[in-house]
């Protein structure tokens, strides 16, 4: 999902680069995101590589699925207590950040990409202050504030979901994660209302420079929220099926980190696009 998202972002950035006359900040974002696509693809290949001792026969898919199923059953039967093999076999290095290195690499490059986009926005605003002031005046400030509160609430509920899972409270964790997904859904619903209103008033992508940036920057962010909601949904299913335990949290931690990235990007977008004159 992240790979597909990065590719869609890359194509959109490419379109923006050529239509805006190749500004250096956007071209840099396009190049940084190109590197992200390569990193994600290499990571996918690495993850798909079967790990087995040298000389042993490769496992077939049936064996792998049976093993996963058995582990899930064992986790479920053991209630909230992780089997010892989880800690020994999948224990991450103490130097590894929560969620693993890959998701933090993704966060770093995503922030670079958005930072370049916002920098380009700020530079263009200096060139056309009247256009940007008029554009900002046409935005729905109360709706944007509501969306900020919704996303921050979503971040809080996901943090509680992860903390509950660490405390072995699987049911509470599921409820908190459901809350985070609901916040994501509410954000997308409010955003749809905002977008419909803009389109109704003819403020589309090509209206002026401000709205080109508005649609692309907030649109990329909406794509991220969509992906994050899908990821949280898959994780919630796993949590309810007993697939994750207090000692086997890597997937949930990386999903939570990606969800918090959506919060963070919005906290950069909201003041830059909606508030700053």
């Amino acid at each position, binding site marked *: *999902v992240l*790979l*597909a998202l*990065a*590719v*869609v972002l*890359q*194509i959109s950035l*490419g*379109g*923006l*680069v*050529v*239509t805006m*006359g*190749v500004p250096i900040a956007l*071209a840099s974002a396009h*190049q940084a995101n*190109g590197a992200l*696509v*390569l990193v994600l*693809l*290499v990571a*996918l*290949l690495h993850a*798909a590589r079967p790990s087995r001792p040298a000389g042993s026969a490769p496992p077939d898919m049936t064996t792998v*699925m049976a093993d996963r199923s058995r582990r899930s059953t064992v986790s479920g039967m053991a209630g909230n207590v992780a089997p010892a093999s989880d800690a020994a076999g999948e224990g991450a290095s103490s130097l590894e950040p929560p969620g693993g290195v890959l998701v933090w690499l993704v966060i770093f490059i995503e922030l670079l990409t958005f930072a370049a986009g916002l920098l380009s926005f700020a530079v263009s605003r200096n060139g056309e202050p009247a256009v940007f002031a008029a554009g900002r005046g046409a935005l729905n400030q109360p709706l944007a504030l509501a969306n900020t509160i919704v996303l921050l609430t979503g971040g809080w509920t996901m943090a509680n979901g992860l903390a509950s899972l660490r405390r072995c409270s699987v049911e509470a964790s599921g409820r908190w994660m459901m809350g985070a997904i609901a916040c994501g859904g509410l954000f997308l619903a409010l955003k749809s209302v905002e977008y419909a209103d803009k389109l109704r008033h003819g403020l589309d992508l090509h209206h002026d420079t401000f709205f080109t940036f508005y649609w692309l920057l907030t649109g990329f962010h909406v794509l991220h929220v969509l992906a994050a909601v899908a990821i949280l949904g*898959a994780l919630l299913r796993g949590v309810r099926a007993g697939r994750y335990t207090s000692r086997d949290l890597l997937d949930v931690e990386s999903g939570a980190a990606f969800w918090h990235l959506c919060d963070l990007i919005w906290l950069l977008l909201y003041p830059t696009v909606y508030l700053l004159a």
Partner: protein
Amino acid sequence: VAALSLLSVVSLTLLWGALTAGLRAGRACPTFPGMFGGLVPPGVLGAGASIASFLQEPLAVQFVHRSLAWTTAAGALAVCAVCWGAGG
């Protein structure tokens, strides 16, 4: 196999991206998603086209880069669908 094929296309796209930047071919066509209103910009596949033009002419270089990028997008979505179908 699908991911390895995609890796080849992505690598080629990145290489062509470097060529596009080096030739300043990004400015050759300022329209998106089409190129001057069509999938193929006028003259690129015409009578005067040669293999060398796809490495030297800014418009043709940007056309190849865009074509590779669309191929990458289709491949990435296909790989995503395959991974999703295989259970993540």
